[in-house]
């Protein structure tokens, strides 16, 4: 809960409702294309929530809206009951200190070593001694199996390693909310298994709330408590992974079972294949 105390806003713990994040009637478009058209969604405290959907449904955009990297054109996003659109920049930065975000490509700072990347938030926001920072960073790197890579530069890491370093950085401030943007893309099976386990373990051990954007149905189903399937700018279906897997809706079945035919067309809208090959479409 965000309360004003002596002129400045502070975050208070306690009196917590079940929903940590509430999204109400969210509308957001890019140009003439509507990404969200009246989206309503709740993220429950302490759960791992999966946001799924076909490519281009705005999953990453939703994460950027939740963290106010983007501002909704209509509707509101409430975190702990506070409309984040009303926050000043300093209040927003205070809120973001409660977040950890794993970007799709890692987004490591390329001029800093792996160690310094993970230490970066600590150096910026705390006055901890170098010795303590070293302990914390090595602990986090050990958790993702990359303690031995502390001295390496981001350019020397593979895609999977960069993602794991970014995960260590995302959790170094012990956040309340961890957001994962496509954490499983491009990982080898071993790294994927490690990340999948880490998502669950960190959520339970640290008592945090996790939001995972992914279209890897199998992997995300093993760790998510609740899943939302987005389509057409709205929530098409929600429930536990098991409920989604057994749902009767054509869209849900197509997505969960990876079928080519269904409500979501594999082919982007185009003129007739035959006419295009014969050049008749230009006439």
């Amino acid at each position, binding site marked *: 809960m965000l309360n004003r105390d002596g002129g400045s806003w502070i975050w208070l713990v306690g009196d917590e409702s079940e929903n940590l994040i509430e999204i109400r009637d969210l509308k957001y478009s890019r140009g003439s294309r509507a990404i969200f058209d009246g989206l309503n969604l709740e993220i429950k405290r302490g759960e791992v929530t999966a946001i799924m959907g076909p490519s281009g449904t705005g999953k990453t955009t939703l994460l950027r809206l939740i*963290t106010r*990297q983007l501002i909704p054109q209509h509707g509101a996003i409430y975190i702990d009951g506070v409309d984040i659109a009303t926050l000043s*920049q300093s209040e927003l*930065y*205070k809120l*973001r*200190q409660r*977040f950890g*975000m794993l*970007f*799709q*490509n890692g*987004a*490591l*700072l*390329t001029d800093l070593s792996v160690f310094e990347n993970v230490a*970066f*938030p600590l150096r*910026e*926001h705390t006055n901890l001694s170098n010795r303590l920072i070293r302990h914390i960073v090595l602990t986090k790197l050990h958790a993702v199996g990359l303690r031995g890579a502390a001295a390496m530069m981001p350019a020397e890491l593979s895609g999977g390693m960069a993602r794991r370093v*970014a995960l260590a*950085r995302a959790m170094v*401030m012990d956040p309340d909310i961890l957001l994962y943007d496509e954490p499983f893309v491009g990982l080898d099976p071993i790294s994927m298994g490690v990340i999948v386990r880490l998502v669950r373990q960190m959520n339970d051990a640290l008592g945090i709330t996790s939001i995972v954007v992914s279209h890897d149905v199998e992997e995300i189903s093993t760790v998510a408590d609740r899943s939302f399937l987005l389509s057409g700018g709205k929530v098409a279906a929600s429930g536990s992974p098991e409920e989604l897997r057994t749902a009767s809706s054509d869209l849900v079945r197509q997505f969960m079972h990876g079928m080519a035919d269904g409500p979501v067309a594999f082919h982007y809208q185009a003129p007739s294949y035959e006419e295009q090959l014969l050049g008749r479409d230009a006439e």
Partner: protein
Amino acid sequence: MKRLLREIYGNAVEFVRTFGAFQLFFLRLLRYSPRMLFTRFGVIVRQVYNAGAMSLVIVMVCGLFVGAVLALQAYSNMSRFNAEDWTGVAAAFALVKELGPVMTAILFAGRAGTALTSEIGLMKATDQLSAMEMMAVNPVPRVLVPRFLGGVISMPLLVAIFSAIGMFGAHIVGVELFQVDVGSFWQQIQLHVEPSDVREGIIKSVVFGFVASLIAVWEGYNTVPTAEGVGRATTRTVVITAITILIFDFMITAALI
């Protein structure tokens, strides 16, 4: 006709919006600059190295040949009036007041300005700036201000080096090649180049430092985050800086004459 008017109106609105955003951006940089100068001095020194020291070779080579060619032109024209001793003065005037600041600023845009734009643009394209925002770290003071200040500090130093090396080039051509008396060469410079001439060069170098660095970081920060976007922003940095420098050069010269 209606469509044309609508297009002109749209472009005018866009221009005013961009110009306003540019001014606000400049004010944001200025707002954080004093604090960063003291709290991130080490980072700024590194940026002075990146923008200044890394541009030294190109500035020195160009300065040497610009000075040499100025002396060549001056000697060939002055010798018609038996005024060869003025070779050094002509080269010094041109270097200190005009070519030193202008050439250095354009070289700076080509070497350091493009490096700044592409570095910041790539940071944006790879979500590094967004990641900083998400870690509650404002990228303006953390990333942009040190680079901006690095450029601002480097430019007057580079101009001084360009002009000094240029005079060395003029000396080689005037004294060593055309046998102008070395005493006359330097004495004429001492007699006729006034402190106000040097001041003009210093003013220009400081202004050009602000202009070139500001355009470079602005273009980087507003890059369309794609490979093509970074390429376009880098090109725009060179073109816009060169044009702006020449316009400012005219305005400053007109104001100081």
